[in-house]
């Protein structure tokens, strides 16, 4: 949990302030921060995540995680010590590298240390911790009006959280890793169906940002903090739901929340309040989706293929961010009338439902039934106890 909490909270907080950080540290190159720095950061996460998902199996997991964390801490600290386009270029690549090296293994560990019956809840707890830490950090930044150095100090602390996990655990690969399991295309089919939903959802969610004009920046800043709080809460709720009713339920609820968000928040009469409302509802969706997409790759993969499954899950939204950082998607979309974008969003959201319907429920009916009976046995015990007391 600490391993993921440290990496993810660092990423989300940094992601929120990345543009202004890079811009502030490269005063001579105005476009650098908003485009190249971001694209290098996202690009290196994507590159290393894919590379590690293929070769990570041959590397000692503990050493890999250690390298990733130390690199993350050092580059974050260096961000405060160096400035200028050259240094920041290298640092942004190294920061992305640090995350790309560690994230697939960190996420795969969630699956290794859990079973299908509790994977949803454990994922929910990880996200609860991550987004509480992230929202508190963002709250601190806002309230104390931290400068770049303060922010970098905070980020270094966040990245250091993961080191405690390495002190507490060895993180050896599970014994079955020695047995090479060959996956066939069919084994990936169910995963790709879930991936399609995530992809369509990521596109719809990404497009929605272009409906929010720049003059709503204060509302977006406040709404984002609120969004993180809701991601924490609904991450935990969705975790319980995923273990109780199956993995598909939180996705459906998440998509419904996003649909309502589009309608009430962005669909008509755009105002500061409606932007906050949309971000709040999107927090519910992201919380629900994150949990499921932390649990499902673990349900569907073998220990030898886990890193690949996890890397593929998160590189899609990152790839979207990467594209936005190199192509002026926002500017292109603003050529279109907001109503047209709204309609496109609706189509994507509608399409996202179809793969969910087709997807295999990874929490099997027998497991749901088993849990139900366990709960029933407990309740029966209480009834018997009451009857005994009446005697």
């Amino acid at each position, binding site marked *: 949990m600490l391993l993921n909490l440290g990496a993810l909270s660092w990423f989300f907080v940094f992601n929120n302030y990345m543009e202004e950080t890079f811009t502030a540290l490269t005063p001579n190159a105005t476009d650098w921060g908003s485009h190249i720095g971001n694209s290098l950061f996202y690009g290196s996460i994507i590159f290393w995540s894919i590379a590690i998902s293929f070769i990570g199996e041959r590397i000692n997991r503990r050493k890999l995680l250690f390298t990733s964390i130390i690199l993350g801490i050092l580059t974050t600290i260096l961000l405060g010590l160096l400035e200028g386009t050259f240094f920041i270029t290298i640092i942004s690549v190294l920061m992305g590298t640090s995350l790309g090296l560690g994230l697939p293994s960190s996420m795969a560990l969630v699956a290794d240390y859990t079973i299908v019956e509790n994977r949803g809840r454990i994922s929910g707890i990880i996200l609860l911790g991550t987004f509480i830490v992230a929202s508190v950090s963002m709250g601190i930044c806002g309230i104390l009006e931290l400068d770049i150095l303060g922010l970098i100090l905070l980020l270094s602390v966040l990245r250091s959280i993961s080191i405690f996990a390495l002190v507490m655990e060895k993180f050896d690969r599970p014994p079955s890793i020695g047995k090479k399991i060959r996956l066939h295309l069919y084994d990936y089919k169910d995963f790709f169906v879930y991936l399609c939903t995530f992809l369509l959802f990521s596109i719809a969610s990404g497009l929605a940002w272009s409906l929010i004009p720049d003059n709503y920046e204060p509302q977006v800043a406040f709404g984002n903090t609120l969004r993180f709080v809701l991601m924490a809460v609904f991450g935990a709720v969705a975790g319980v739901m995923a273990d109780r009713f199956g993995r598909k339920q939180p996705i459906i609820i998440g998509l419904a929340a996003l649909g309502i968000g589009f309608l009430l928040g962005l669909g008509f009469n755009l105002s500061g309040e409606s932007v906050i409302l949309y971000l709040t509802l999107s927090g519910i969706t992201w919380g629900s989706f994150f949990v499921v997409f932390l649990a499902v790759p673990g349900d569907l993969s073998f220990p030898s293929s886990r890193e690949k499954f996890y890397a593929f899950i998160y590189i899609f939204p990152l790839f979207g961010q990467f594209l936005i950082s190199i192509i002026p998607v926002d500017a292109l979309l603003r050529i279109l009338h907001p109503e047209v974008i709204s309609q496109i969003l609706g189509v994507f959201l509608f399409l996202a439902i179809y793969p969910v319907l087709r997807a295999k429920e990874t929490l099997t009916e027998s497991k749901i039934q088993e849990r139900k009976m366990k709960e029933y*046995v407990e309740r*029966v015990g209480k*009834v*018997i106890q009451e009857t005994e007391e009446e005697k």
Partner: protein
Amino acid sequence: MSAGKALAFHSYKGGTGKTTIATNLAAFYAKIGMRVCLLDCDLYAPSLTTYFRKTPESYINNLLAGEAEISDILVDVSSELGLNGKLLLGFSSPRKVDIHEIEIRHDMKWQLAALRRFLAAKKELFSEYKLDYVFFDTSPGIRYWSVNCIAAADFLFLTMRASDMDIEGTKKMIKEVYESLTKFGSKCFVILNKVPGASPIKKFQEKANERVLLEKDIEKSIGIKVTGSIPCFCDVQFNKHEFLSAINQPKHRFSKNLRDIANKINGMNQRFQVDEE
């Protein structure tokens, strides 16, 4: 109130002989003058209506739904069977629609409400009918009504064969169900059924200590005391309509084995009653 006890016969899998053992034990106790009630609690696959060839007016299903009292569902077969004591029977409905209702339509809340009615009926059976034993012939596995019967019983008898599948399944049930429910005071035992050794060919027949060793082995494996074991008798097992062999064929080895178990249960009951006092 009478110091009667409720005995549940349960198993991990079907076909272990719960119904045969429960009906024969109940009839045996009634034969020797005790007051007994046998309830067909296998609501998902009822068998006592066929076994006793009876069609009652009301079923256990009606009792659970709150549509009938316990007195409405009981059928007294004592005089018909020439028993010295009392044998009351409670049948569950073999109608498809009733099975479907119990199995699928009713939710957890309904099942718990039905359990309360069932517990009240059990209380009434002991207080009003002065019964020595109430038998619950349960459904196999972990389902609402097997759990309810296990919870409502004072003595739980796990009927099993000495096969790996039964042993492993029983271990799972002990962990998931019995341990949670027996902490409220009920006692759990094993009855081994269909064990090898009843062959008509002498060289395949069991030796004196073989069954004792098997019982010890099972006790060690699942951690529950074995009350007794019954060999597999083809003429009982594969009889088209086995009907109360324990009282109709008293000299049969099956009946002898069953009597041993019945005496052990009586002995245990008395011992526990002394302990309770």
